[in-house]
């Protein structure tokens, strides 16, 4: 079956069996290997991607079900050489060790901050509770997401300031 979808802003398509999982399509057909597989039961969240901005475990979705959708994978977080706030947060706060859960964690964190720009620790822990990390004990992942929230807040403030200072601005 033909699958046509948008991945990280680019139109992509492929011909797959109906049973092929979205995670396998991303990894095998599109060679986007940043999305990982850690279990077979939709328990670990290593395969998390964003579909229309919402975190989804891509092992629970058939590739054909994603037709027409817009998908963001870890490879789509940075804008060229510019890392996104969540990526900077994970680096600065040592939010990763082996790195295997990191793409899923960062995508969930990104989605959380879109909905809730200033989450509490409990809100962060609840948001990432569908994703398992075996290395960090979650302490620094929480800090990393808070760090990203702070960077986004600072960026918004700067944008607001610039807008205010611009001629004709309000």
């Amino acid at each position: 079956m033909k699958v046509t979808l948008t991945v990280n802003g680019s139109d992509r398509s492929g011909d797959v069996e109906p049973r092929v999982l979205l995670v396998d399509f991303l990894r095998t057909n599109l060679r986007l290997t940043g999305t990982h597989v850690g279990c077979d039961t939709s328990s670990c969240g290593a395969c998390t991607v964003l579909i229309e901005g919402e975190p989804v475990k891509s092992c629970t979705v058939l590739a054909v079900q994603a037709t027409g959708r817009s998908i963001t994978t870890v490879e789509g977080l940075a804008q060229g050489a510019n890392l996104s706030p969540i990526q900077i947060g994970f680096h600065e706060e040592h939010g990763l060790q082996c790195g295997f859960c990191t793409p899923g964690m960062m995508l969930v964190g990104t989605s959380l901050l879109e909905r809730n720009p200033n989450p509490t620790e409990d809100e962060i822990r609840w948001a990432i509770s569908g994703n398992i990390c075996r290395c960090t004990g979650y302490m620094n992942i929480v800090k990393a997401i808070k760090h990203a929230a702070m960077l986004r807040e600072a960026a918004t403030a700067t944008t607001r300031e610039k807008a205010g200072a611009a001629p004709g601005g309000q």
Partner: protein
Amino acid sequence: MATEVHMHGRIGESIKRKEDGRFIRGKGNYLDDIELPGMLHMAILRSPHAHARISSVDTAAASGMPGVIAVVTGELMAQHKLAWMPTLSYDTQAVLATDKVRFQGQEVAAVIAESKYQAEDARDAIMVDYDVLPAVISPQQAKEAGAALIRDDKENQKDNHIYHWEAGDQETTKAAFAKADKVVRLHTFYPRCHPAPLETCGCIADVNGATGKATIYMTSQAPHAIRTVFALVTGLPEQNIRVISPDIGGGFGNKVPVYPGYVVATAASLLIGRPVKWVEDRTENLISTGFARDFHMTGDLAVDKDGKMLALRVHLDSDNGAFFADAQPTKFKAGLFHIVTGSYDIPTAHVTADGYYTNKAPGGVAYRCSFRVTEASYLIERLVTNAAIELGMDQAEFRMKNFIQPEQFPYHSATGWVYDSGDYPKAMNVALEQLGYDELRKDVKARRKKGEVTGIGIASFTEVVGAGHGAEFDILGLRMFDSAELRVHPTGKAILRMGTKSQGQGHETTFAQIVTEELGIPAADVAVEEGDTDTAPYGLGTYASRSTPVAGAATAMVARKLRDKGRKIAAHLLEAAEEDLEWESGRFYVKGSPDKAKTIQEIAFAAYTNIPDGMEAGLEGVHYYDPPNMTYPFGTYAVVIDIDKGTGQVKVRRVVAVDDCGVRINPMIVEGQIHGGLAEGYGIAFMELITFDPEGNCIGSNFIDYLLPTAWETPRFELGETVTPSPHHPLGAKGVGESPTVGSPAAYVNAVMDALAPYGVTNIDMPVTSDKVWAALRAAGVNE
């Protein structure tokens, strides 16, 4: 000429990790990310039965399915003398079963096909007829008269007993027990659990028919040792085997052993002439690869009326599964379990251990632990808390009274260890102060008066890590040294290669910092490479917290070798005598004239462009470090818990962890390691369990049944530290990755037992689940 020196990244600096860049961009290179031209995929058919005789394997239907290139059976492997392989514990293990299956999940056949989906389809079409046999699922069953004989393949094996092993002194221990005022006994089962790294195990075998070179990409914590084992198993010449461990998604011991899948994939690639990839799924990982623990332990602690420990007697029955494939030093059948006297000055001890075959997965590995130290630490720390409660003494005070004192180091333990260094009272005091122990004790009393069930648990563990010395510690005869090779390029940048392999521990940063400290090259300028046996020097790998104690020491030593050569070059450049030069922060200067100096970068350039006559060009070297002794990290962990009387739910209120791992190279990375281990310890104490029904079906074969802690239930951790440098390590470092998993399970469970002590409960085996706590409270007459 004054020269500016920049040494960013010295020891003690929490610099950000060098390896992060690729991982946060989704550009890590894990095993399953590797795609080779013409690569085939392998799926393994596994036994549904724990114990059964194979009467037939029919591959006809599977062979004809779309995309199938080959179906491999035990019979085919036997034709190539590869149906069995040696284990790391001098036993044999079936690669693909020929006669019987001996555990559920055992490898029976394999399909190699063009795609993974096709391989799995065809695997399901293989027909196997089994005659089911009774299953043996515990050491207790294994030793019963008339128990089914599991290893009837072994000529001299008449029962299910594998080994008997002893340490310490039986006679003096017996005499000490005879004089004891009190003997406290604890029988506890440390159940089977699984390291469950988020990335499962796998390999890609690529045997080049034209050159005979076998390149095997493998999720291995010990690629060099694996290469040697492969050479011995397959008969391939070792120079034609190249093992590459790419980025590894967590190991925790699970990726030390040699698994049948590796051997089958390699044989298949050899026969077919194309690369073959095998990546196990999560169920395969949990039911067939290196498990942990499964020790049934009984400890007796003899004390006098003043609360002084007199002697310790321990017996354990080990459940080793169907093949004795433990990954541990050769001499020690029960790993390093005989460190069981722990942090206490116990004059005499006697430890006995018996291992048994059962119809369960083989390959006892140390799940984030140095060869069974965590079982030992759990037993002694649980026993000590029980003894304190029974003596009516405070847990902390009883420990303080019996600690090995700082002036007793190096300390010769009753079971033969020589502890290198420690200050146990200090770590305890820091932990108690950080916790606010005295206030909390009053608070516990007050809460209990109100009917609350609450408690404080303490564990003061001692680890033993960093194997060797090589004369004492070996794996299949390979001495447990490790290595570092350092090459400084003409522009003053460097590459460091080691025999270890990071699985997330941050080696690319930590080991670069050692070069910074010793040679003055900024960490950013030092590339660190591990895991390719064609390029890295030989080493025994990363497990048992040995990378920093052994390969870290090798790195310091090789850097010092280069510094010695650098001194000669600097003397030549400065036209000064070598002995007139002083080394400081990345440069040599002439004594009394600090402006007359040459930086390591200038020296490196000169090593290739301007050397004295007769000197070998270049600035590179290698060092193989065989440690004179193990290192002995230690610490005190304290946990506060509350129990809901209605549901039995245990809620962890606080965790204070004070670690002493000697000198910390990158404190940020050290703390990250401790966080991770405390979370895994929490999982082990309260959630993680691999168990079996009477037929030997594995319960805990996926992440719905095998529960791992998420961010929601994982407690928040408060860390503290003391620093007692190792006297024999060149940097004073001790290793830390496993301390929190060794120390914390007992601290968590001791807190529960402290809470339940007023109800007369003396033990609940892990995992301490709500239903067990609820039942214990009900049995004690609590009905709410």
